[in-house]
């Protein structure tokens, strides 16, 4: 994991001090509410339905056990003993007081954390593949460049007041687990014809009111040029993005209105004129950061690992958890363990402070002190010995963290919705719970296989419903909560936006509608075909007919 040097540490310390002073000035009347709002947003502090909400940055979803413990403490001391892991790999606390926020930022700075730019019209948390560094087939570890981008984007003097928020994601392997094509800038690490490593740079993706898949701006940008090239994209957006209408202010709107050819030409023109004054990315700096992401000292382990295989054979529940939640590690004898935060009846993505402490301990014991957060609101222990998986699973079970449902129908992604969020039109969490309840049978879940349901409580799409295999959007229909279903969204490299099924449903009818979608899938699927593949093969009509059939 990256460790701060004196420069990194000083920056977060000074930022925390700056915010403390901004709060003082606000309370003393030296800053108006209008002036203060963007400033507090740039430190992740929202005013939500019940209280202030603080969104803390978890850069590219990576945490040390020490940091996880600090989050648990913050939950206890300043909130209500729990936090919520988000669809951008961050964490949110929902019951924060403004008066405590300077102290919280100080507490975060102590463990090399911050809430910088987790909101506001600036560059947000750069997200990456949650299996970075431990999965086979990677060109290079994307976390290295995610850290480069984190620093480059932090308090960038030219790009801190953009027309709107700006989200970047990076992936180093396929399938793309970082949803690169749904981002304002997306990066794929790749090799060119000469075997040199660089980046395919895409721009103009996004969800929200108008979902758009990103397009390629340049097929290959060498490492050394990455930051300067991105600055040209940012500059074109900063100068030309709309500032008159917040629903038309993202870069996706600019790219659509100019067309990709014209947009690319403007970027290239700016780049040709400014490459010498752009941010450099020297090899030495890449090497300095890469050194923090060297693999741990793996042992040579003979496979198959007998203790592991025996435990699987002997314990059906353990076997089930392994089958669903354990992902192949690139090293023989090791495993990637996914900790589901989607227990039935729970709140998707929530973890109590006690659970956070437990995970920190388990990270230390089983995974070299490292935890990851996925953008589907689960956690990952990336470096677990196979022969330790059984012990890990037993301990996870004690803390309610062993739900064996990764990527299954009950592994639902849901935004906080109208239970928490001031922007929402409808609740999303109860819908997730209803679906989980209806499909609680584990055999049935496994029979259905990979099925990603994503729920948003409003058009801002923080639940990423546009890219759900089944997407659910909550709307307000004359004071009633209604839910609109969409099908066929996907966030991987074959990204697609879901298609709206038809009329919406009140909450209590949603599980039945899902049942009918499932029934259609089961009727039509060929051997081993996933839901999304069946949908792509047969189209929306069979699903529509079934769901809306009379009676």
């Amino acid at each position, binding site marked *: 994991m990256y460790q701060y040097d004196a420069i990194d540490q000083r920056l977060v310390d000074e930022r925390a001090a700056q915010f403390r002073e901004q709060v003082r000035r*606000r309370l003393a009347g030296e800053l108006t509410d209008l002036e203060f709002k963007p400033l507090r947003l740039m430190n992740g502090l929202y005013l939500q*339905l*019940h*209280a202030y909400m603080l969104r803390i940055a978890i850069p590219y979803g990576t945490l040390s056990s020490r940091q996880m413990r600090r989050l648990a403490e913050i939950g206890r001391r300043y909130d209500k003993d729990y936090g919520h892991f988000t669809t951008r790999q961050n964490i949110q606390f929902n019951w924060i007081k403004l*008066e405590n926020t300077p102290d919280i930022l100080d507490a975060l700075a102590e463990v090399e954390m911050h809430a910088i730019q987790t909101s506001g019209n600036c560059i947000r948390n750069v997200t990456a593949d949650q299996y970075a560094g431990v999965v086979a087939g990677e060109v290079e570890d994307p976390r290295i460049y995610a850290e480069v981008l984190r620093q480059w984007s932090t308090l960038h003097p030219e790009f801190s007041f953009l027309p709107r928020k700006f989200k970047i994601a990076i992936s180093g392997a396929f399938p793309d687990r970082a949803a690169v094509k749904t981002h304002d800038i997306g990066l794929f690490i790749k090799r060119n014809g000469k075997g040199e490593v660089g980046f395919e740079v895409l721009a103009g993706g996004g969800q929200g009111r108008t979902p758009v898949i990103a397009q390629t701006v340049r097929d290959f940008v060498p490492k050394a040029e990455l930051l300067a090239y991105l600055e040209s994209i940012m500059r074109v957006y900063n100068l030309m993005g709309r500032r008159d209408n917040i629903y038309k202010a993202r870069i996706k709107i600019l790219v659509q209105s100019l067309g990709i050819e014209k947009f690319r030409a403007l970027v290239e023109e700016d780049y040709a004129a400014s490459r010498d004054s752009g941010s450099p990315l020297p090899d030495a700096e890449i090497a300095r950061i890469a050194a923090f992401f060297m693999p741990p000292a793996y042992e040579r382990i003979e496979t198959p690992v007998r203790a592991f295989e025996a435990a699987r054979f002997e314990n059906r529940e353990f076997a089930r958890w392994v089958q669903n939640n354990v992902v192949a590690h690139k090293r023989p004898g090791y495993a990637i363990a996914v900790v589901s935060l989607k227990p039935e009846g729970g709140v998707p993505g929530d973890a109590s402070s006690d659970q956070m402490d437990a995970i920190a301990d388990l990270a230390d014991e089983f995974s070299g002190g490292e935890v990851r957060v996925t953008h589907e609101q689960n956690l990952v222990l990336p470096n677990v010995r196979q022969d330790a998986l059984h012990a890990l699973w037993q301990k996870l079970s004690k803390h309610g963290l062993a739900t064996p449902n990764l990527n299954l129908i009950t592994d639902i992604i849901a935004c906080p919705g*109208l239970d928490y969020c001031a922007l*929402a039109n409808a*609740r999303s*969490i109860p819908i997730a*719970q209803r679906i989980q309840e209806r499909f609680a049978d584990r055999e049935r879940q496994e029979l259905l296989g990979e099925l990603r349901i994503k729920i948003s409580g409003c058009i801002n799409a923080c639940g990423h419903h546009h890219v759900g295999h089944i997407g659910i959007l909550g709307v307000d229909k004359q004071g009633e909560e209604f839910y609109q279903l969409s099908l066929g969204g996907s966030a991987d490299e074959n990204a697609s936006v879901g298609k709206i099924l038809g009329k919406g449903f009140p909450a209590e009818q949603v599980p039945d509608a899902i049942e009918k979608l499932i029934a259609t899938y089961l009727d039509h699927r060929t051997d081993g075909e996933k839901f999304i593949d069946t949908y792509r093969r047969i189209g929306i009509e069979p699903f529509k007919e079934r769901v809306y059939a009379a009676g």
Partner: protein
Amino acid sequence: MTAQIFNANDILSGRVVYLTKAGDWSERIDDAAVFEAPDDEARLKALAEAAFEARRVVDVYPMEVSVENGAIRPRVYRERVRAEGPSVRTDLGKQAGNL
């Protein structure tokens, strides 16, 4: 004019508060000053805006309520969530006395 009250968030704690007759802010919705006449609205609005200027509260706005036996209930569901707490954590928020 339908029955309304003023609500806001306390600037320091962020908690939802309701404007009372005396011009204080209470965390209990039943303490809120209900108005139905333009005169009362104007008087209460002035108090609310003064509190915003004085940096006691933020995000002040009026909302419609119904009143039954002294119990004040928001008409809009969103405001009921604000007045009670998250429906999925009934152990938290005003509904549980846990602010």
